[in-house]
């Protein structure tokens, strides 16, 4: 009844092509953004910010990046944590070697460096597909792990191989309180989401999807696989690089190569599979699922007042988490984003379904 677009006439091309053509959607999204910027800082605790919300926001950026590559362009990658690592170490080196550089510039440059590395590791995608490509991108993971552990220059000759940059500073604003970190990361996420959303609607995005659906047919209608695939790798790695820099600087504060190991790559892949491939919104759902759920499960027995040993809680966390992943994949193979879409469809017909 409320969610119906009757009477919303589109009289210009602009209104027809806008990001959210339905008025209710627009209000809803604006509402969510306003809530996120204004209400959440009032409500959430330090713990919620540092342990749940900030990691969720940062990994959502990385998941969007991976979704562009896997969900939109159909090129599978098992090495996305490596591109995050490239972004993090690039940002670290920029900060310590070029003093006084604005952090937003650092972030953009870190993304660009990651994009370059992404292009290099994307080259095999021109010849190989599917599982074989997955194995090739695995090489990125191992190579980057090795490089940052071995080449001392990247870690500024730190004796332990762990790097810890100073707090982020933006136009004299030192971002060290959880709330400030939250605002900063949220701001970046909003910009990146807009960027991604518009990219996938553009001709570039359409060329990615054409390649995904059938690359031979795509090349017949004039889409160059070289451009489409490599641009997907570049954009995707750019997102990962930005997310990696934020992960290191804003979330961890100090990290070693292990922080970007293959587990993170797998987690990113799970995020988009559970959240929904080929959906920006799904990246959010997936990131929330993977980041927040294990922590909730871990604390549930304590909250309910069930006495349980620490080891038992951890084992249960793994079991239940695994079971839930299986459950969601069976219940909705297209991911949580699909459930959301179904909900919206139903809402249109409510309360008089045919």
């Amino acid at each position, binding site marked *: 009844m409320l969610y119906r677009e009757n009477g919303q006439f589109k009289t210009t091309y602009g209104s027809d092509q806008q990001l959210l053509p339905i008025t209710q959607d627009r209000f809803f999204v604006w*509402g969510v953004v306003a809530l996120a910027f204004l209400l959440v800082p009032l409500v959430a*605790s330090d713990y919620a910010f540092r342990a749940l919300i900030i990691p969720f926001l940062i990994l959502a950026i990385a998941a969007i990046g991976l979704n562009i590559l896997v969900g939109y362009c159909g090129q599978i990658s098992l090495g996305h944590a490596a591109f995050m690592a490239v972004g993090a170490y690039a940002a670290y080196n920029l900060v310590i070697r070029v003093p006084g550089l604005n952090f937003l510039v650092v972030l953009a440059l870190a993304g660009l460096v990651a994009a370059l590395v992404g292009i290099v590791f994307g080259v095999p995608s021109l010849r190989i597909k599917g599982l074989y490509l997955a194995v090739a991108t695995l090489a990125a993971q191992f190579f980057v792990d090795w490089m940052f552990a071995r080449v001392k220059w990247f870690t500024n000759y730190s004796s332990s191989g762990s790097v*810890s940059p100073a707090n982020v500073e933006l136009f004299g604003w030192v971002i060290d309180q959880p709330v400030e970190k939250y605002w900063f990361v949220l701001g970046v996420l909003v910009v990146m989401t807009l960027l991604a959303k518009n990219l996938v609607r553009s001709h570039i995005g359409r060329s990615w999807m054409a390649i995904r659906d059938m690359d031979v047919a795509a090349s017949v209608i004039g889409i160059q696989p070289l451009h489409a695939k490599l641009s997907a790798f570049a954009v995707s790695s750019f997102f990962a690089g930005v997310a990696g820099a934020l992960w290191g600087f804003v979330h*961890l504060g100090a990290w070693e190569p*292990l922080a970007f190991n293959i587990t993170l790559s797998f987690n990113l892949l799970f995020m988009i599979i559970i959240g929904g491939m080929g959906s920006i919104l799904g990246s959010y759902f997936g990131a929330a699922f993977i980041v927040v759920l294990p922590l909730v499960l871990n604390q549930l027995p304590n909250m309910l007042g069930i006495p349980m040993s620490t080891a038992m809680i951890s084992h249960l966390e793994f079991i239940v988490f695994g079971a839930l992943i299986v459950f969601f994949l069976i219940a909705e193979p297209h991911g949580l984003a699909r459930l959301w879409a179904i909900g919206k469809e139903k809402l249109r017909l409510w309360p008089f379904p045919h």
Partner: protein
Amino acid sequence: MKLATFKALAAAVSVVAALGSGAAFAQDKGKAPAKAAAGPMEQFFPALVYRTGAYAPNGVPFANGYGDYLKLVNARDGGINGVKVTYEECETGYATDRGVECYERLKTKGPTGATVFQPLSTGITYALTDKTVTDKIPLITAGYGRADSVDGEAFPYNFPLMGTYWDASDILVQHVGKLNGGVSNLKGKKIALVYHDSPYGKEPIALLQERAKMHGFELLLLPVTHPGVEQKATWLQIRQQRPDYVFLWGWGVMNSTALKEAVATGYPRDKMYGVWWASAEPDVLPVGADAKGYSGVTLQHGAGRAKVHEDIIKLLHDKNQGTGPKDEVGTVLYTRGMISAMLGVEGVKRAQERFGKRPMTHEEVRWGLENLALDQKKLDALGFAGVMRPISTSCRDHGGAHSGRIHTWDGTKWNFTSDWYEADQQIIQPMIKKSANAYLAEKKLPRRDCAKELTGG
């Protein structure tokens, strides 16, 4: 009308949450949530443990020792001068991000917030070092952590009590030097460092390189990737290079794997020396008698039971209140967990001498840890006679003690086989200074002035 329902629900939830957490919000926002001591007479100790994952065999005895000692303080002494000790565990699985999450989860618990954190992971220590400064919570890293954090002027909240990896590797070099009739005779020798490829394993490299330059021995660096079950390539290199000694800097299953590989390669175990995290029961028991002759530097204590262990058995395990199995009491890592807890408790006690017999805030505990003075008499009273030597810290020296001895596995148990060594501070101090200064420069932080603080207060 799903959307509207959802919105209404969300609004309701957020209002309730806002009401509920309004009070918490006010406390959380401050940089140091130092609450007044008006609450219950309790001192809260967070425990970052790992009872699952690849490092559980080593993490479990440590966690049990830590928990048992805190229980003992309540059972034997009735708390810390009447302040009851409470503690809660949080599982990190040795993963840095989970360690940070646990830190955030536990730091505001208890009437005065978390007393002191002891993450038992060098990686987590690195990640927490900055956060503890912001939150003003001390971080004890007894026998691990950043070697340069001994410098209390640069790291006001880090306490690498009893020894760092630079101390450990220095003692090992001194020991093998002594076996050769003096460190100068190490010239031309070859020492291989088989290390866990993480901040933990990389810590000693700087000192060993310094020593290698001084004495002219060759240092082979052989990293082993986490979790360390695959070491074939490493031991192939050892077979080819035939180093005179192998220093083992592993953790968890990596240590026993290394010993098994040494047996398979035929590398003599009595030429192998482990750091104190690589010379405990879980490391040698899987290899059993084949590990005979393998030695390690100790963090002062070895295996075996002292009076404090007897107290734990009498007051806790005999009443079924022990944290782990009874026969674990007195093993190397159990005792280390116990000592770590004791150091935290003694920090509180020392702070109480100055600030009064009530629950201490973490800022006050930091003062206590910085002015720790455990003499032999106090140690005897606590039941630690023969376990460790007196330790005293200062603003400049957050380590407090830098000595150790060697113990050797005879196939069934650990025996001390050397005299006490003192890590050579002539070599280590300048390195600490240099590294700490680099840290301060990178972080754009000022250096504390100990001299000023001493005269001022």
